[in-house]
């Protein structure tokens, strides 16, 4: 059984520390993949002053735990960590961390991308950009919905 850790909150995370906690000294995880999503400096106007991340408390944790469990059922994972921040974030700040550990590198890669693709379409977070004057909600992207689709069986509706 994969060890699954989910955390949602305003606090920043430390990749090195989360990685160390994930694998510790155990020698089963021959492959660890980490994804870090960060605030980019482009979108509204030329300059995003602040990105506000809203979420649906309670449901976010539940949705992330389900996505991680689905990944662990699909690939032979030893451990999964998902950390997602909420609240105001500035360019270059970290938003999301996904860590997947496995004996096999392709399992760790694929499970990690699977978790991010589902997180982007199923976990209730919303971004609002503001440049100090104007604020606007970020639109969902078709490319994210398509990325999620690729994990469905071919005969899915």
């Amino acid at each position: 059984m994969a060890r699954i850790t989910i955390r949602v909150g305003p606090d920043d995370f430390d990749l090195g520390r989360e990685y160390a906690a994930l694998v510790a000294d155990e020698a089963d995880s021959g492959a660890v993949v980490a994804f870090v999503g960060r605030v980019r400096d482009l979108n509204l106007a030329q300059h995003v002053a602040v990105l506000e991340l809203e979420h649906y408390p309670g449901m976010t944790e539940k949705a992330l735990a389900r996505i991680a469990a689905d990944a662990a059922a699909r690939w032979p994972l030893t451990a999964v960590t998902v950390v997602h921040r909420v609240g105001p974030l500035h360019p270059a700040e970290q938003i999301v961390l996904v860590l997947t550990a496995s004996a096999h590198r392709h399992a760790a890669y694929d499970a990690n991308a699977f978790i991010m693709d589902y997180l982007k379409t199923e976990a209730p977070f919303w971004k609002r950009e503001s440049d100090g004057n104007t604020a606007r909600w970020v639109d969902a992207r078709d490319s994210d919905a398509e990325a999620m689709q690729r994990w469905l069986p071919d005969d899915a509706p």
Partner: protein
Amino acid sequence: MNTVQLLYFARLRDVFGLHSETLTLPEGSAVADLIARLVARGGAFADELGGARVFRVAVNQEMARPDDPIPAGAEVAIFPPVTGG
């Protein structure tokens, strides 16, 4: 009649000017019945939920489809497509 707690998030909360409300629905109502009732209010509700715009519904914090039933005492959230990560 069943009592249902409605929650709105993100852009929908802004355009409805409403964080949450409590409604009573006939027993056996599905998600589609609730949406039809909100659309009947007209205004922003009709614009957002009655046309081509895409939205999502969660019942008791699980993503739901139009024909999913709404249990008594349910927490039903309506929100735009998600944009986290």
